[in-house]
Structures are given as structure tokens and as C-alpha cells.
């Protein structure tokens, strides 16, 4: 075990994948100079340009700022023998390539009757919570969950970031990885040997019996912190991190809620048609009779993200807003009025 940051773990997974398979290449804007910190040394954001020296310009490719062209070329390359990892830097830029994601990447295998396989990973960072205003603060993974043919991961810990990325690179299907910048500096012990976290398998971040909180991406540590608070009042909270949003580990979610009878879903995306909405509907459809209280979603509101730090901080789920939701489903009195984000 070695202490790795979330970002360092991504770099380590990329290095392992590049070493393991010559067909893996990294393309994206500014990857040669390691501007986003995952094409440098293994452990942290250091050793600028290290990947370039190690793998050369043929496999580490700086691109022009042409997201549509990049995503399409990566798809074509994946259909013809490469296994590209595409670094799209911020998730907000995925929209530039929407046609390629939706019409080519997601549909080609299906439309062509299985002739195409699409072994490509599109990584992007959700840059919210950093006071960068509405053009850089998106958490757009639910839009892509609505596109059959894409697989979606949203790791919340360094170990998952490493292990899921390895599985993503090894997968023959196209995968979008949404990485929360708020987690970049999170550190934990990570196995420095190769390991793979399987796609579609949730992680139980905390075991409990009274309430299930399904939390996504940066809401996972917030949910765990809320659970620890509630434990002091005798409420036992189970926290489930799906880790993969497509395919979703429905069984793990249903099993937990069947046990606890109460569900709170927390995520940093917008409320309407979000992952939380999908998970809520799943539970309501499948195990309505197990529910002892209404399901509560804790999400970002259906509102754009304001720039001012004083405004932005109320937009995403926090341990306070998640704890307030938990209190409601177990009928504890509210501690204080919680205005936002519920």
C-alpha cells in the first residue's frame, strides 16, 4: 500500500495501462506537459512530462482544441485497433462533442449489428465548487446516463479511481469517467500493484441498519461525514457508493434499502432527471413495500451555478444537508432550518 491522491491514482492507472498494452494511447489537450496532473509521475501531480518521455509522442498526443474532432477520431481509432484514453480536461467541454458521443460513440456498435467495438475511455473533471462560474462547474453525467451505449463511472476514492480506470481501459465498450475536482487531493492507502475494480459493482462505504444513503462522487465523503454525526444520536446509516452509474448496481441498492427501509439519495448534479431521480424511481418501483418513509433526494437545484463563493457553496449536497434529510426520514427533529440543496 502507498498513500496516493485521487489524481495520483488516476496517473498510476494510466501508467499501468500504458505499460500493459501498446494499443493504449492518451490523447487530449495539454497532456504532453501534464497540465491536468495525470500524465506525470505515478503518485502525485509532479514529474511534468514524465509520460511523454516514457511513451513518446506517438502514444501521448497533444491535440488541438477540437473536442468534436478529438472524440470522433478517438472513436474511429477505437474501432480500428487502438484503445485510446481521451483526456477532455473539464466535463463542461463534453458538450462540444455531443454529436460524436451520442451519434457515433454510443450508437455505432448497435447500429452496425455488433461489428464495431469501441474500447475508449473519455475522462473529464467536474470542476464544480471552485468558484469558476457556470461555464466550468458542470456535473453532466446524468445527461450521458440517458444515452444507451455509453458506460459511466464516477469514482469517489483514490482506490476506486485507480481500479475503475483500469477496468475502463480494459473494457471493449466506451466509458465516460467523471472525476470530481473536489476529490483530487483526497488521499488514502492504495495498492501500488495492478488491480481492477469491476464495472457495475457498488461499494458499501459504511454499514448501517436504519437508513440507506446512496451517494455519488463528491457526495460520498459528505454522506459518510453525515452518517458519523448521526451515529452519535444512535442512528445507524448505511452509505452506498454506486461507483458505476451505467451499468448501475441495482441489486446492491435494493438490498440495502430492503434492509433499512429508508432511502436518501445525494448527488452534485441537477435535480431533474438526475441519477438520484433514477435511483429513487428504481426503489419505488421495485420495493415500495419495504419503505418506511418517503425517499428524499439531496441534489443541486435546477439552477445554474453562480460565481460568488458565498452563493456557490449552497448549491451542492453537504454533510449538513444530507444529515438533515436523514433526520427527516427517521423522524428526528430538524436541528436548524436547512434552506438549500434539499
Amino acid at each position: 500500500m502507498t498513500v496516493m491522491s485521487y489524481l495520483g491514482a488516476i496517473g498510476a492507472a494510466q501508467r499501468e495501462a500504458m505499460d500493459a498494452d501498446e494499443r493504449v494511447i492518451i490523447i487530449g489537450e495539454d497532456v504532453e506537459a501534464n497540465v491536468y496532473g495525470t500524465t506525470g509521475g505515478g503518485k502525485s501531480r509532479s514529474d511534468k512530462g514524465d509520460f511523454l518521455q516514457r511513451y513518446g509522442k506517438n502514444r501521448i498526443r497533444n491535440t488541438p482544441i477540437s473536442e468534436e474532432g478529438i472524440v470522433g477520431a478517438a472513436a474511429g481509432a477505437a474501432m480500428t485497433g487502438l484503445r485510446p484514453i481521451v483526456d477532455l480536461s473539464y466535463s463542461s467541454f463534453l458538450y462540444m462533442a455531443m454529436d460524436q458521443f451520442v451519434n457515433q460513440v454510443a450508437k455505432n456498435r448497435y447500429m452496425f449489428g455488433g461489428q464495431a467495438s469501441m474500447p475508449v475511455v473519455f475522462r473529464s473533471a467536474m470542476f464544480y465548487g471552485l468558484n469558476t462560474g457556470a461555464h466550468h462547474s458542470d456535473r453532466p453525467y446524468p445527461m450521458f446516463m440517458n444515452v444507451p451505449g455509453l458506460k459511466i463511472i464516477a469514482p469517489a476514492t483514490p482506490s476506486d479511481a485507480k481500479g475503475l480506470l483500469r477496468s475502463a481501459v480494459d473494457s471493449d465498450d466506451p466509458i465516460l469517467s467523471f472525476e470530481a475536482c473536489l476529490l483530487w487531493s483526497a488521499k488514502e492507502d492504495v495498492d501500488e500493484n495492478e488491480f481492477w475494480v469491476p464495472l457495475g459493482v457498488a461499494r458499501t462505504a459504511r454499514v448501517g441498519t436504519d437508513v440507506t444513503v446512496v451517494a455519488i462522487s463528491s457526495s460520498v465523503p459528505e454522506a459518510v461525514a453525515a452518517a458519523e454525526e448521526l451515529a452519535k444520536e444512535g442512528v445507524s446509516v448505511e452509505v452506498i457508493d454506486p461507483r458505476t452509474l451505467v451499468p448501475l448496481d441495482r441489486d446492491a441498492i435494493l438490498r440495502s434499502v430492503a434492509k433499512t427501509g429508508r432511502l436518501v439519495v445525494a448527488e452534485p448534479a441537477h435535480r431533474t432527471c438526475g441519477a438520484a431521480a433514477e435511483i429513487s424511481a428504481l426503489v419505488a418501483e421495485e420495493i415500495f413495500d419495504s419503505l418506511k418513509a418517503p425517499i428524499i433526494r439531496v441534489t443541486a437545484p435546477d439552477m445554474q451555478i453562480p460565481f460568488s463563493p458565498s452563493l456557490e457553496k449552497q448549491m451542492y449536497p453537504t454533510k449538513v444537508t444530507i444529515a438533515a434529510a436523514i433526520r427527516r426520514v427517521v423522524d428526528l427533529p430538524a436541528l436548524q432550518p436547512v434552506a438549500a440543496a434539499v
Partner: protein
Amino acid sequence: MAELARDTLREMQLRMLRIRAFDERASKMVKRGHIPGTVHTSIGQEAQVVGATMALGAGDYMSGNHRSHGHPIGKGSPLGPLMAELVGKATGVCKGKGGSLHLADFAVGSLGESGIVGSSIPIANGAALSSKVLNNGKVALAFFGDGAANQGVLYESMNMAGVWDLPMIFLCENNQYALSTPAHTVTSGIISERAAGFGMPGIRVEEGQDVLAVYDAVSKAVARARAGDGPTLVEVMTYRYNEHSEGLRLGTDYRNAEERDAWLKKDPIMLFRHYLASHGFSDDELDGLQATALAEVDAAVAFSDASPYPDLSVAFDDLYTDKESAA
């Protein structure tokens, strides 16, 4: 141009005849309701399609657009599974899940036709990238229309191909209309001249109904690509005889009769027949090619007719490589 082998010349005419016969039959089948939806024919554009596809090697890649049947036929894809795909049969080249707009035959390097104008251009560019990274000597070609030439993704792709010296050919089928819109009313300047801005050769084939002229231009681009010297933009001037799509009735006459008549006089199959006749091909042999193409199309329709429709469960296959991931 180097002298072409007799077999190559013969094959060129046969492939053009195949496309014509296939599309004429497909047109009828749409009108009779035997093909669901619609199709876009390449009738009139056979020289442009075959000149380009035959300049490619068997292992080379291509992507195409909605005017979609000629490309795989020109690349050598058998007609039966293509026709069955148009009808929506289980034996279709895409198992009945693509249809006319999404023909693909990876066995001949056809990486797929696209219903979204311009969208498949970067796919071929990516195939050229993989060829470059894997150093396997393959070349890729993207077919697109004069209408698609105004999509931004073309220029993103040309820039990347240029800066990376990709073995890539951008082939603009300039049939002078995008649906009802005359190209000159929406296109600033000459399409092939845009290549200069990306530091790559731009070639305009004015005699785009002459299969040898197209073959010659694309062969040069292929040779350049294979030598590692990078991409080329080839614009071929041509004309579609039929309406934009079969069954479409616009009620406006956006093309005039004189224009059409002038192009009909330069019919690619007729022109090449004259050429072949003056180069040692007998009338019998040339008639035989025509008969062969028609018989192949008859056989393709018979193959389709005899094929079952897909099992309903097929709709739920092939989304991912594993079935469990599909909801």
C-alpha cells in the same frame, strides 16, 4: 497515369453497373413499400464512388454518409446482405439494425455510413490515426457531400490530419446540392481550395463523371498517404440524377431541366463504356457486365426475400459487448 490492367478496367465498370442496378432497384422497392423508410441513391455519381473506392486497397478504411449504398458496393461488399439490410432482414449486413443510412461492412473496411451530415468524417480520421500509431500502412477515406463541407467538424479533422500527417483522404462528393440548397448559395469559395489553409493538397476533379479521372486523383492521394506524407482533400464534381431521397416530393423545382440534360449526356457508365469499347472490349463483353450486375441484384433481392425478419430479441443485442449491462 499508368496503364491499368484490363481486369481493373472491367471491374470498375462492373462496380458502377452494380451501384446503378442496386440503387434503381432500391428506388423501386421504396416506392412499392418493400423497403421501409427511404434511401438516398448514388445514381449519376457512380464514377465518383468507384473511382475513389477502387483507388483504395482492400484493407483500407472508409466512412460514408446518407448517400450510402455506393460506398460499400464500391469497396466490394456483397450485395445480398446489403439489400437484406435495406429491407430490415435478419441476414442484413447489420442484422437489420442499421438500415440504408447505417450500412457498414467491416470485412471490406467500411466503418459505417452516417445519417448525421458530417458526423462520420472524424471516424475515418481516427482510423487513419490508428493506422499511423500502429504503423500498419492502412489508409482511410471519408466520403462527405458539399453540404457536409460546411460542418465545423470537417475542419477540426483536416487540421488534426494535417498536423499529424495522417494517411487520410477527405473526399467531397460535390453534387452541387445539399437537398434543395445549391452549394454556391451557402458555400464561400471553392471547397478544394480550403485545403491550402491546412497545408495539404486540395484537388478538384472537374471531370467527376470520368471514373479514370477520379481514380487517378484519389490514387495520388492514396500514394501520398501511404508514403507518410499526410492527407489530401479531393473534391469531385458530380451530379445526382434522382431526388435527394426516394419518394421525396418537394414541389419546388430547384434544379432545371437543361442542367440535368447536360449531366445526363456525361453519364459515367455510358462514358466509360465508350472508353472500354475503344480499348478492346467487345459489345458482347460490355453487355455481359450489365447482365451480370442485374443478375447480382436479382440474386440479392431473392436472398433478402428468402431471409427471415430478425427475432424480436435482436433489438436488445449489441448495445454493449456484454448483454447484462443493457437495462
